[in-house]
């Protein structure tokens, strides 16, 4: 299951030594990260189903154990994406760009899961699938920005130019996200009082907290595994492109 690795083997043409070392390191830790993620997920879900149901929310509170880690990962992956983009622009480190290309779809998936689980929870709790409150609006915008970053990557004919443009766009988004969140919060508070602020975040008691922490760590491991998995594909694809272009030169 974990061993059929798409990582480029042997001499890596077109990568510098340090870039190749990082790629090889990722290939080596991939199975370990995969098993860790699976183990944590199983343990976390076991704890979740043994946690007492919430006295206000009943059983539907359980979706929160998926929802909260997803939201954390959606945000964290954008932070990771920005760091990788900065490293790529500043040091021209190609592996950072490989990681950036891999992290964008994973981040988009996590923000989609966040929105979906939030809606499923919202229907019985608020009586509506959707409400334009500050956090929901910000998360939706984050998803659209992820999609924009992915679209930018494949819109240019030259991969090198696409990589640079995508990195710049990612940083534009990174600067904008705090402004977006801040503006949406203002808009919801100054413009019309939100109907469920304050009711949203009751303090979580001990027996509910342990599974949440385990699930949060599991979310991180799953995200890491998916990014590494995708990086392997991206690196192999680039390797193939290099070899093909070399073939064209000789042919």
């Amino acid at each position, binding site marked *: 299951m974990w061993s059929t690795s798409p990582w480029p083997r042997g001499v890596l043409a077109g990568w510098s030594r340090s870039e190749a070392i990082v790629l090889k390191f990722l290939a080596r830790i991939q199975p370990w990260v995969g098993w860790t993620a699976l183990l944590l997920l199983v343990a976390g879900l076991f704890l979740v189903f043994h946690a007492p149901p919430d006295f206000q929310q009943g059983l539907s509170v359980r979706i929160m154990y998926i929802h909260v880690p997803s939201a954390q990962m959606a945000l964290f992956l954008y932070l990771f994406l920005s760091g990788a983009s900065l490293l790529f*622009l500043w040091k021209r480190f190609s592996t950072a760009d490989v990681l950036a290309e891999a992290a964008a779809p994973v981040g988009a998936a996590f923000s989609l899961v966040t929105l979906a689980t939030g809606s499923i929870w919202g229907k019985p709790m608020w009586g509506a699938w959707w409400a334009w409150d500050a956090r929901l609006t910000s998360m939706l*915008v984050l998803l*659209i*920005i992820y*999609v*924009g970053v992915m*679209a*930018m990557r494949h*819109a*240019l*004919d030259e991969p090198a*130019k696409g990589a*640079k*443009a995508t990195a*710049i*766009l990612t*940083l*534009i*988004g990174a*600067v*904008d996200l705090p*402004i*977006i969140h*801040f*503006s*949406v919060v*203002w*808009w919801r508070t*100054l*413009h019309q009082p939100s109907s469920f602020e304050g009711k949203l975040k009751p303090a979580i008691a001990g027996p509910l907290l342990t599974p949440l922490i385990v699930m949060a760590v599991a979310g991180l491991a799953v995200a890491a595994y998916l990014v590494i998995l995708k990086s392997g594909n991206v690196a192999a694809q680039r390797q193939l492109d290099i070899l093909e272009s070399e073939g064209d030169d000789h042919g």
Partner: protein
Amino acid sequence: MLRAAYRIAWKDVVGDFRRRSTLSAMLFFAIAVLVVFQAAFEPDRQEATRLLPGLLWVTVLFTSLVGLGRVFQAEEEDDAFEGLLLSPMPRGILYLGKWWGNLALTLLVEILLLPCMLVLFNVDAWDRLHGILGILLLGTLGLTGLGVLLAALTRAARARETLLALLLLPLVVPLLIAGVQATGIVLTQRGDLGPWLQLLVIFDVVYLAMAPWGFGWLVEE
């Protein structure tokens, strides 16, 4: 140095008047949006006053997309972009020139659009016109500043205009919120203008400080 930026902007604006007429395309597009809106909602006088801020900014946003799509088109058609890059000036100045050209056209369209809107929707706000124009100016600085940078990013992209819209719309959400709220407050004379003006200024400052750098990174070889 700023003279060079000014010359690029001048070249774009004059060239536009003589040949490409982005200005009239934008203006008539904006008026078409108003007609569509009227047909879709048929607001009475009271509703028109309530809807005007949102409609104004939506129209401005879509209209600016028309202009932004053409910022680098003259250079694309004649392969003159490399020529611009060969000119001995800092990249930031080059960006400034492009930005000023687009800003001038967009502001011109807005100045013509606003009275049209007040007439068409029968909203009596002639005594507050200067306030609304001031907010429009403040918002347009950031909108075109970010927009020209995104236009540079998508200059050579496939499905260029679609991609530009996809990237610009989510990023200008704060600008849109602040612009609509501020315009509404000026129009109804109720509420606190302060926070929204602050938000507009923050957006402008952040992007106008960042965009020349981004542009420089993008075009360096």
